[in-house]
């Protein structure tokens, strides 16, 4: 029962074939776009052709490719990323490196990814090659430990924005923007927010519409804390952000998962909510027929990098390196966009149901993009923030 079919994502022939076709078109488009963008972005070469590598890779890179061929064609990823996000990425990776036939990605809770690797490394050894998570605090804590991560400097680094390296040897594969969402059936045109400041102003004028009907993410959880804390302290004037929150939080209720958030806004239990992860929200906007709308915040959109690092005890280290480089490459970024996550490399086309980093910058301006920090916040600071935040809630 557990013997998997070789490429993990290959069934449903007709649909896959169609996706592959659109994939080729998307890649062709992105290559064409890249070609016009000067040396910084560098043409990715012949996209889908097996084994073809960008010309800016170092001469010794071939040893990694050859090493990967001897590793049995397997790769194990511990991630908190969904199968649907991964599917196009694996497909494109396997098209390029056809000897990698078996990719396994477990989808664990954001923190469990790390606990599991640490537990396994302490006992029988861990089968994990690659660790992928967007839990910024946990990543920072994990990477601090000696001997858990393999040192690796990706040759793609010269061709992607600096923020792609979130920690030494840890690379962002996508950025998850935190959005504001609302229900258009409940909010007339003139009451639709464009950011927290705008939402606070509207809520002040119409307190009855918004009482107990604004949704936030619970700051007691790691995810909610990271995005909320970084929003406030990523502002030029954090106290101004607090003033908006002083209006909003007494009207708000906290929820603990993106799924609940999206469903409850759609059903009308809440009229609006903020810091909702874009990856699940954008496809819902597309299929809700205009009922559910999600937008970036014009007074500061937090982006949470989803980062990958190679485990120190990786059983397939060369394949893992190929995969990390692929995630940062033009082809990889296009596949990531296709899977519904926000890719950031210049020239990647926007795919259906997702937005790219370029879309975000175009919409809110570079100054209004706040990068969630991959550093541990001291416990006292956490308590102070959580207490102030929760103190404003009406409960």
């Amino acid at each position, binding site marked *: 029962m557990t013997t998997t079919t070789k490429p993990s994502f*290959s069934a449903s022939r007709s649909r896959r074939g169609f996706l592959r076709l659109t994939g080729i078109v998307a890649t062709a488009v992105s290559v064409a776009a890249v070609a016009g963008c000067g040396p910084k972005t560098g043409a990715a070469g012949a996209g889908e052709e097996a084994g073809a590598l960008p010309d800016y890779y170092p001469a010794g890179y071939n040893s990694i490719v050859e090493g990967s061929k001897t590793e049995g064609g397997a790769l194990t990823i511990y991630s908190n990323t969904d199968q649907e996000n991964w599917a196009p990425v694996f497909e494109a990776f396997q098209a390029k490196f056809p000897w990698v036939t078996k990719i396994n990605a477990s989808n664990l809770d954001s923190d469990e990814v790390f*606990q599991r690797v640490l*537990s396994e490394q302490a006992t029988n050894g861990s089968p994990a090659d690659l660790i992928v998570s967007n839990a910024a605090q946990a990543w920072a804590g994990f990477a601090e430990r000696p001997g858990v991560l393999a040192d690796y400097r990706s040759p793609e680094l010269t061709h992607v924005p600096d923020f792609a390296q979130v920690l030494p040897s840890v690379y962002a594969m996508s950025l998850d923007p935190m959005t504001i969402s609302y229900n258009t059936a409940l909010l007339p045109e003139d009451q639709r927010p464009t950011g927290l400041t705008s939402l606070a102003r509207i809520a002040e004028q119409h307190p009855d519409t918004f009482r107990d009907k604004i949704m936030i993410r619970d700051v007691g*959880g790691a995810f909610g804390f990271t995005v909320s804390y970084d929003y406030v302290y990523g502002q030029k004037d954090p106290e101004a952000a607090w003033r908006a929150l002083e209006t909003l939080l007494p009207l708000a209720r906290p929820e603990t998962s993106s799924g609940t958030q999206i469903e409850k806004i759609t*059903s*009308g*239990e809440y009229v609006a909510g903020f810091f909702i992860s874009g990856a699940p929200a954008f496809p819902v906007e597309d299929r809700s027929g205009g009922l559910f709308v999600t937008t970036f915040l014009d007074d500061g959109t937090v982006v949470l990098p989803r980062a990958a690092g190679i485990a120190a005890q990786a059983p397939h280290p060369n394949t893992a390196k190929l995969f990390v480089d692929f995630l940062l490459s033009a082809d990889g970024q296009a596949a990531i966009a296709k899977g519904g996550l926000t890719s950031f490399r210049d020239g990647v086309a926007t795919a259906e149901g997702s937005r790219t980093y370029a879309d975000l910058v175009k919409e809110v301006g570079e100054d209004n993009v706040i990068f969630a920090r991959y550093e541990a916040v001291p416990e006292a600071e*956490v308590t102070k923030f959580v207490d102030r935040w929760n103190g404003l809630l009406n409960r």
Partner: protein
Amino acid sequence: MTATVTSPPPQRDELKPPRYRTIAGAGRGTWIQYAVLGVVALLVLAPVVPTLYQSFLDRPLYEAGGVFTLDTYVRLFTEANFGQVALNTVLFAGLTTVLAQLIAVPMAVLVVRTRLPLGRLAAGGMQWPFFISSLILGFGWITMYGPAGFVSVWVRDLVGTVPWNLYSIPGMAITEAVALAPIAFVFCSNALRQSDASLESAAQVCGAGPLRILRSVVLPMLRPPIVYSSVLIASMSIETLSVPLLYGQPVGIDVFSTFLYTNGLQAIDPDYGVLGAASVIILLVTVLLVWVQVKLLRNAQRFVSVRGKATRPRQFDLGRLRWAGIAFVAIYLVVGALIPIGGLIFRSFTQVFTPLQSPFDTLSMANYERIFTYPAYIQSIWNSILIALIGAVLVSLLAMFAVVVARRSPFRFGRLVEYLSLAPQAMPGIIVGIGYFWALAYAPASIGGLIQGTIWALVIAFGLRALPGAFGSIAPVVMQLGQELDNAARVSGADWFKTFTRVLGRLLTPALAGSMILVFVTMIKEYSPAVFLAGAESNVIGTTALELWVQGNTGSVAALATLQIAITAVFVGIANRLLKGRSHA
């Protein structure tokens, strides 16, 4: 101890008493009893020992240099508003248990022992809410009865206000009670089907009418199933996470499980020591509950109803009162099960499901397509079926042996077997998962490596979680079987095991089948231990649903739940058919 007859007196050949071999000086009965104890102890202790150990350590197990400390317990009890959390938990669990029994006991009596139109249909329908995981059921309730639910909106349009508040402790308790009432119902109806008509006839001879017989004879005889199911329901509602998280979190009602979830697993820096300590506290509460249960049922003789003389339970005629009975059954079925589950199935065929927009505008099969596009999702459905099938057989057999050893054997450690079998009922699934993870990590590489990350790890972990339910569904039935049946077999020369296979085992076949259904249903919707134990290739329906849920694909979650209901319905249908053929044997 064993009835080893050394020199049989000369008799006619066909009546020769059987001879039994002994192994190392003990009869096979003794060996089997020790084997049962060993298996149960291994299953239960494997995850408990690492948890207990962790609760006394100042750092995660995997870090070297841990120091013994009681600090974890101090931190747990001094955590802000721990008192309020404890109070909420007691209120929630108590109210859930009482409500579940108020629904289940009258329902079981009505459906099994009175002539009710469509009684068979009602008996089947009564179990529906149990087929669905409470995460899904809770969500069904929110879409119907929540602040912006279909029914709430309709009632508000009708009378101007919504007269209930789902986001409250009573709201949580009602939902959970509807979800768990089927347990009590199954336990009680099993017992009622076996009840002794001679007791009732005795009452009738004394001039008692049907109501009086129900009150004075039938109900008191239900004490074992009520006690077993109450303890089970109380501990399950202490452990349950989904309903408190869905209803309580937005309005700030914390119970023990959500407290653990937010302060432990979802926390910025999870404190595994405090998690371990909290699990140990829950374990202690469970042991206490089981102890109370044993005390309440001490005089087991009183509940014997199946004696050497066979009788056939008969049905009462309630006269006009039966219409009240029908109304009661119908309200539960329609409000508790039909509306939320119907909404769920409807949800699975729509893209957007909200009172704000006609759901017929977005009818589609896309939710099902999504599931069948990804091999990993399809695999998870097969895994769930396989795990539940294997588990249903193995766990029910183990539970039957455990019950018989605990209640019907001269085994010295019989009571210990019972405690161990019931202990897992309040172990939070996630703790079971982490505990087994550690147990497998420390097991000899040959065993650990073989099981780790495969579906066998899940069969074991899910099976452990289902064991108390299976034990609880079989034990009351055993208590109804008169000891004289055993004695008759023993007098005829059968040893303990022969008695079991020829007499008790036969009489227990319906209970065993009932237990298999219960275990199958429990295991097919189980997921929490899998969050830590499942490998990339051993996902189950529950973990896939969670994944789809977090992505905001609620429609596909509903589709998955619908598939799960269909699978369960098919299984239960087949099992019931087989059971019907055998129960008259």
